[in-house]
C-alpha cells in the first residue's frame, strides 16, 4: 500500500465490487493471541477460555483470508490515511473460545458513491463476515462500514 494518492476510480468500478467474496477459511484464536489482545484492552483475561470480543475486528478479516490492506486496495483507497470508519456492527450469538476452529466467510455487501455536504466525494463500502463454530452454529456476525475518501481529484492534499 503506497501513501501516494491515487486518482478517483470510476463509480462503476466501485459498484462492481458488491458481492465480491473473500476466499474464507478457518481461524483459531490461540491462548497467546487472546492474552496479548486482552492486555491491549486493559482488561484481565476472561474466564473459561473466553476470547475477548475485540477479536471480532481482525479474526473475521484474517479468517476470511484477506487483510486490512487488501480491503483498502479493493476499494481503491487513495492512501492509508484516506479511510474513515462509519461504523462497526458486531452481533454476538455465542461467546468465542480459545483453541476452537471457527469457519469464516466474508463478502462486500454494499458499495456506493456519496458526496458530503461540502462537495467532497467518498465511497461507502460495507463488508460482512460470519463466524461459525465447529457445530455449524453461527457464533458471530460483523459488519464493517468504511468511507474511502476521495480528495486527490480535487487537487487537495491527502
Amino acid at each position, binding site marked *: 500500500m503506497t501513501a501516494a494518492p491515487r486518482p478517483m476510480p470510476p463509480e462503476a468500478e466501485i459498484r462492481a465490487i458488491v458481492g465480491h467474496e473473500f476466499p474464507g477459511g478457518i481461524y483459531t484464536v490461540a491462548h497467546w493471541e487472546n492474552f496479548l489482545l486482552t492486555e491491549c484492552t*486493559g*482488561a484481565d483475561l*476472561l474466564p473459561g477460555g473466553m476470547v475477548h*470480543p475485540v477479536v471480532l*475486528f481482525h479474526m473475521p478479516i484474517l479468517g476470511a483470508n484477506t487483510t486490512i490492506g487488501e480491503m483498502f486496495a479493493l476499494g481503491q483507497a487513495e492512501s*492509508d490515511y484516506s479511510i474513515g470508519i462509519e461504523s462497526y456492527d458486531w452481533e454476538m450469538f455465542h461467546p468465542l473460545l480459545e483453541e476452537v476452529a471457527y469457519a469464516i466467510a466474508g463478502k462486500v455487501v454494499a458499495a456506493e458513491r456519496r458526496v458530503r455536504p461540502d462537495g467532497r466525494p467518498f465511497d461507502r463500502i460495507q463488508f460482512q463476515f460470519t463466524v461459525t463454530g465447529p457445530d455449524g452454529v453461527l457464533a458471530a456476525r460483523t459488519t464493517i462500514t468504511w468511507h474511502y475518501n476521495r480528495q486527490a481529484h480535487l487537487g487537495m492534499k491527502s
Partner: protein
Amino acid sequence: MSLQPGDAIPDWLMESVRPERMRTMAAILRDPNPVHWDRDACDAIGFGKRTINQGPLGLSYMVNMLHAWAGPGCISRLVMTFPKVVLDGDRITARGAITVVREENGLRLADCDIWLEREPGDRPLVGTATVRLPA
C-alpha cells in the same frame, strides 16, 4: 438486577491510552496504517506526535465496561461510530445508560447508549449495545 431506562452503567476508566498497546494491536491486526505506530506519520497529518488508537481498541473499553457491569459474555450486539480519534496519552472513560429493558426469546435484554468520554461533552466514540442481563 432491578433496572430501568435512564439507569447509568458504572464507568470504566482507561487512565492513559498507551502507544505500546497500539503497536501490539497493529501487529495482531496486521494493520499497515502507520498512524497507529509512527508518531512522525501522525505529526505529518496534523495530530502532533501522538499515535491514533485503533477503533476496535476504543470499542474494547466499552466491552470492558459492559462485562464489569453484567458479566463476561453478556454482550449480544454492539454498533459503534467513531466521530473523533483517541490519541496516545488520552484519559478515556467508557460510559453508558440503559434506554430499554425488554424480553426476547426468554432472555432479559437491556438496550443501552454507550460512549467514550475524554472530557465532558467530548465523545470520540458513540454507539449502542444490547446486553443479556443476568436471570
